């Protein structure tokens, strides 16, 4: 057992490693009624081509299979595991992202029973030809829901502009066509490859007894022999953007746009976290609420409050992204490009940097009230080799020189643009 203490933010993490290689974490939240527990695997939608431990040949699985498997794990031989959680009064859920699949529940009572149930069902898939077929109708509706969702479409169209080959450009749920090819054998192959305890973590956030949690881990996790490394195969992706612009029409009222710049740093661990925070600070300096550019665009009616920015960094891909609603996305794009060039010429301003770093740290601390937020931030970062709470260290150590360097590297390409226009009537 190891304890990591973060005095500055009054948080700590207690870690325990199971003999299978699984790591379990307790993040205590004193005085909270709710316990938020997650069981996550380092496996997401981009992992569609791999060589399983012991195999010689690579396997290519249908798009959307990680998400499909997430749906199917709820089904157990003796019925849906959701029923069992409901009996215990807890709220079960699961989600699949580009890089992880996460199973979770939140409860305000009988934590032990809920927790044992979580550990148990994720380790015991029950797949039959019939139950795999049955799920296709449900997931087809989920896919259609996202097809009609402008926020989702404008985002994936941007990824399609940034990436030529990388599977992050593919919808997490796949397509109605691709999921029709999914069968029991393919699901089992993915499960056996990616759901080994050594590829998984457990995170419990709440007012719980850590020793009791780790005891349940020791008893509830089946210690399989470590099979060795999973080789994940991603295509060689060019460093440049694939397309400058992608446009589409949907039933929306105001045009929606997103712009982005690919990040080719391929860093991991603490360096990744530092780079992510740097990019977030840069985005705020460039076009945040306190920037001249944001305020000019807002005053001219070119953007509205829907405008936001984000930095995404994964091991095999990454990008900055920003956008919202605008009647003239091309004009906004041009103005942002000008602001980027201005910083290339003049550099970042120390006063802006200091103030925005402080503001970002404050917002980071404000986010620590929420067990969901802690858990959702902790899991993906851990799989990338860094502990979320280390972010407090980043704020302390980061210098304007670090950030200036990231700026020069990252903003070397003209941003790509994705626009959803309203339907022509």
């Amino acid at each position, binding site marked *: 057992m190891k304890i990591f203490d973060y005095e500055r*933010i*009054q948080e700590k993490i207690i870690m325990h490693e199971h003999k299978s290689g699984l790591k379990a974490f307790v993040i205590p*939240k004193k*005085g*909270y*009624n*709710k316990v938020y527990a997650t069981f996550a695997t380092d496996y997401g939608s981009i992992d569609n081509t791999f060589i399983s431990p012991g195999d010689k040949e690579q396997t290519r699985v249908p798009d959307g299979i990680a998400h499909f498997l997430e749906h199917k794990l709820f089904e157990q031989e003796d019925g*849906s595991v*959701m*029923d069992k959680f*409901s*009996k*215990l*009064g*807890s*709220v*079960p859920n699961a989600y699949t992202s580009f890089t992880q699949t996460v199973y979770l529940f939140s409860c*305000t*009572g009988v934590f032990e029973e809920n927790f044992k149930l979580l550990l148990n069902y994720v380790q015991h898939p029950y797949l039959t030809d019939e139950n795999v077929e*049955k799920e296709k109708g*449900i997931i*087809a*509706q*989920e896919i*259609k*829901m996202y*097809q*009609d*969702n*402008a*926020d989702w479409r404008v985002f*994936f*169209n941007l990824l*399609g502009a940034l990436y030529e080959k990388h599977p992050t450009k593919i919808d997490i749920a796949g397509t*109605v*066509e691709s999921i029709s090819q999914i069968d029991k054998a393919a699901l089992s192959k993915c499960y056996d490859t990616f759901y080994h305890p050594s590829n998984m973590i457990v995170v419990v956030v709440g*007012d719980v007894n850590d020793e009791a949690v780790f005891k349940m881990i020791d008893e509830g996790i089946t210690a399989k022999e470590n099979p060795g490394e999973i080789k994940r195969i991603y295509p060689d992706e060019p460093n440049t953007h694939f397309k400058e612009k992608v446009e589409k029409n*949907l*039933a*929306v*009222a*105001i045009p929606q746009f997103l712009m982005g710049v690919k990040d080719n740093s391929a860093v991991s661990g603490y360096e990744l976290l530092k780079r992510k925070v740097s990019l977030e600070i840069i985005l705020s300096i460039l076009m*945040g*609420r*306190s920037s001249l550019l944001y*305020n000019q665009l*807002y*005053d001219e*009616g070119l953007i*509205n409050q829907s405008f936001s920015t984000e930095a995404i960094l994964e091991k095999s891909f990454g990008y900055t992204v920003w956008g919202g*609603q605008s009647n003239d996305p091309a004009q906004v794009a041009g103005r942002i490009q000008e602001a980027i060039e201005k910083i290339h010429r003049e550099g970042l301003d120390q006063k802006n940097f200091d103030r925005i770093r*402080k503001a970002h*740290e*404050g*917002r980071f*601390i*404000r986010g620590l*009230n*929420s067990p969901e937020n802690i858990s959702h931030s902790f899991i993906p970062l851990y799989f990338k080799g860094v502990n979320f709470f280390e972010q407090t260290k980043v704020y302390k150590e980061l210098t304007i020189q670090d950030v200036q360097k990231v700026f020069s590297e990252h903003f070397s390409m003209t941003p790509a643009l994705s626009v959803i226009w309203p*339907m022509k009537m």
Partner: protein
Amino acid sequence: MRNSKNRVAVSKLHEKNGISFYAVQSDKFKTIQLDIFLIHPLQKEAVSENALFPYVLRRGCSRYATQLELALRLEELYGAGISAAVHKKGENQIIHLNSGFVADQFTSGNTNLFDEAGSLLLEVLTRPVLEEGLFRRDYFDQEKTNLIQRIQSRVNDKMHYALRRCLEEMCAGEPYAIYEDGDEEGAGTITLEGLMARYRKTLAESPMVVFISGNVNDKDTGRFIDKFSGLERDCNKSFYKSQVTKDVAKVRRIEEPMDVSQGQLCLGFRTQVEAGSPDYFPLAIYNSILGGGVQSKLFQNVREKESLAYYIFSRLEKFKGLLVACGGIDIKNKEKAEKIILEQMEAIRHGNISDLEIEAAKKSIETGTKSMQDSQGGMIDFYLSQLLAGDDDDIESFLDKLMKVEKEDVVRISEKITPDTVYFLTSLSGESTGEGSRNE
């Protein structure tokens, strides 16, 4: 069942001039939050102006006259936030100003964030940037355009659009049909003079509720409350009570075509149950059994058994006594889905409810309510709702009453629920698009 050790204490501090102050006291949060609510009945003639002025106020105040200056100041205050929003609860329009910031132990030096953020929030509410006694013309024009865009953008989220269109059609002619943002026509006719007059009137005359949440000492709280004493108030109104009971002569059917690949089906019902009535408790259990979660009849039958939908749920509008069942389905499955939804309601009416369903419904609401105590926003919303409902229950007595609901109560309540409107958002052709044909 009870868990009193983690209680978040909510207490009334003070009431004067139609402003009531509440403290949501807890030391488990890292933040302090200040929330000011102005409560105004939904009225066609006032709704658009009330929906606009909070956003004009958010543009700046006398000390920080532009959004840019305000943003710079908030960043200096460790990324404190000030936000304006307009909500709707029953037939009331709720104007909301909020400030959130980190508690003092996370700041370095001797900044008193509470005093400064509190003053700023109040200045945003009461000391707008004026030109010849009116709001700045450019702020007015820009925020008016933004309001119209917000109204137009309702269509973007198809599920919520369908849900709200169903409620609107259902309550046509009643105040509840009015959106919290009003409509495009109303927004278009707002004048600068009219807006200024409305702002002054709403600020002076509407009941105001203020919440102070977090670990705040009495002295700081007292100073914050004192800041309201300079407000000119003329408020003798209590909260407007929504009209709940209504006879339904005939079920209305609305189909709206749009360029979509998935159909959105919403069935609207009148429950005839008022928010503060004892019948609300069995109604809440009824809703949970019908469509409240993964254990619910709708989820089990529409999704798990028939694979017709990914999302399917029912929801209560507590203050107006409405219940809506919604699902995203293939267009060709509309009749089938509607039939299954109605069958589930029929089953409840016939007492076809297992002990497990009752238990799961109770536990699900209990878990949700207790979890709410881990969120400052959740607590505030609960207590504001209780105030509007005229309900004195705190969380514990609220839960006690829910736990006492019996199967017979749920069956009895089901008799009151009458179908009102069936709304369907469908494709332009009214037919299913070929599967996968719209994939990129």
